[in-house]
């Protein structure tokens, strides 16, 4: 049994304004029983890392449809590590070509979801990661 709610930060880094996916995912993770914080648009990586730290989240989910993923994912990853949050899952979605997905995963980013993903798949992935990686996850 999962004791406490999984805390997820859904964030929109960069200048990209496409928030349809981020909002649908945020609402569906909330409906799946998670505690969801949504940052709103146009966030810098620094702001996202600060919010993640302040809200003590388990998961940071980034939504990027601007093509800037190779800059923004590694930046958020580095900032979280600098802040001692190396046990946080960084996942996300957007328009990200497969070879970039592989490069990002090699750096330590989690699964990245593309167009056509069922929201349930994202929720399931986060829940499984949580159970496997969080000592306090199981009663």
């Amino acid at each position, binding site marked *: 049994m999962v004791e406490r709610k999984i805390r997820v930060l859904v964030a929109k880094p960069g200048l990209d*304004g496409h928030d349809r996916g981020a909002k649908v995912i945020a609402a569906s993770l909330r409906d799946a029983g998670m505690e969801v914080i949504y940052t709103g648009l146009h966030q810098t990586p620094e702001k996202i890392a600060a919010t993640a730290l302040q809200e003590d989240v388990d998961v940071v989910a980034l939504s990027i449809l601007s093509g800037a993923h190779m800059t923004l994912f590694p930046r958020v990853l580095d900032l979280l590590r600098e802040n001692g949050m190396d046990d946080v899952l960084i996942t996300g979605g957007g328009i990200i070509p497969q070879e970039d997905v592989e490069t990002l995963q090699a750096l330590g980013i989690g699964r990245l979801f593309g167009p056509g993903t069922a929201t349930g798949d994202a929720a399931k992935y986060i829940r499984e990661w949580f159970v496997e990686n969080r000592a306090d996850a199981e009663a």
Partner: protein
Amino acid sequence: MSHVIDTDVPESADLQQEVERRRTELAELEAKLAEWEATSAATRQRDDTDFTTVSGQPIRALYTPLDTRDDDYLGDVGLPGDYPFTRGPYATMYRTRLWTKRMFSGFATAEETNERYKFLLARGTTGLSVAFDFPTLMGYDSDDPLSEGEVGKCGVAIASLADMETLFDGIPLDQVSVSMTINGPAIMLYCFLLAAAEKQGVPFEKVTGTIQNDILKEYQAQHAWIYPPKPALKIITDIFEWSSEKAPKFNTISISGYHIREAGATAVEELAFTLKNGFTYVEEGIARGLDVDEFAPRLSFFWDVHNDFFEEIAKFRAGRRIWARHMREIYGAKRAESWRLRTHAQTAGVTLTAQQPHNNIVRVAYQGLAAVLGGTQSLHTNAMDETLALPTEHAVRIALRTQQILAFETGIPNTIDPLAGSYFVESMTDELERQAEEIFTEIDDLGGVVAGIESGYFQAKIARSARRFQDEVEAKSRLIVGVNSFEEEDEPDIEILKIDESAGAAQHARLAELRRTRDGEAVERSLAALTEAARADRNLMPPMLDAVRCYATLGEIRDALEIVYGRFQEPVAF
């Protein structure tokens, strides 16, 4: 299909006889229809659909003359080019001039995009449409720290007049019309374009094209804003005022449903929100003291063309009728040009699937067909790979050829508004108009569009509709081929366009060179004059053009106005 049943004043015995005949016919039909309905109710219906449109509008199995009996042909439908323009904004439509094949395009640097434009022009595209990168859309220079990683990625980077000159190098701006998808910093990019034309020796009054310049839908859906609504509306009204005299052939706004729909809205929400935004701009112009007939003829529209074929066609038709009626009856416009809704259309990017991407060619063809049957004035057809990346030349060429096949092989443009008189299409047109009017009242009750934006009304409605659609897809009550049905296990990857990081470096170097070689003092003086004009609430066009001519950059101009106007803060909700 004319149902002019005016029993009070029969003008002749013939007419009275005709009315009687018609009445008997409809009564017979009613009885027949009741029988048909009984049979239909007793017959099994398919269970893989709930027979609603993609927006959730229930659709009946059958439409008959009973559904259009209240239509007054001349008053509600009429002739093309005549009020209320249901059948088209121009009298002869595609018999005189086909729609403009306008492909939205832009990536990397101005040089590279200039080459793509020349490629498109050489292959029969008839108008250009500039896609800007995110820094440009948000009003930041390519070398701003916030632009890192985004320069040239989703469109072309344009940070000053110098970039605009390169973008249209060898493309005569008095012959090729240019549409620019730009909103928050629309006035800056408009001035870049005008100044670039000036450098080519083309006077302002000969420049044709469009700036999107629709800030209200930015707050609602697309989210590329800079300043808060009030100053943003002031700037737009400045553009209307200045252009009606100095650049009378330029479309000063493209009031856009596209992004509202793409963000998740239904067809009727797209229709109603967009038109209500349009009315808001008209009210701002009138409040400035402008004559509505001076600026209204330069207002243009931009619809999304989604998958539900007939709903989309009805949306185009209803939109023209609603606009005409409000412009004449409510805003007192007297010129037909002010009543006439002219529109661009783009096939719905959101319907493209990453799965089995070649199927997107078929989706785009159906959507393009709907736009043409809806009577669009220009069309962008999406390339099959646009859900994966910016399109390759190969994919763009197929998208363009799709329009050429539609225009020259199908015979569809031979007659005007061929679906007029369809019981279904006419009744759906009526229904969308009725529902849009209900939404207008709802928005009025909130205190208008700006109040609705500040309270998050539009954003919440759009997010709710997006969620409903996603839930339907996941429950498989709405089937998407290749996504939740007819899936393939092993799909080969298709070739996609990669934009490398070189555009960012090139733009850095270009801007450094520009800042070194321009007259720095003149730039500072012109920017100070711009700030001063904003403080004094004067029209910003003349001082903006001055600043642009001295090569002030986009970000510098943005900052010069932000001192006075501040910036917009989004109400966050999901």
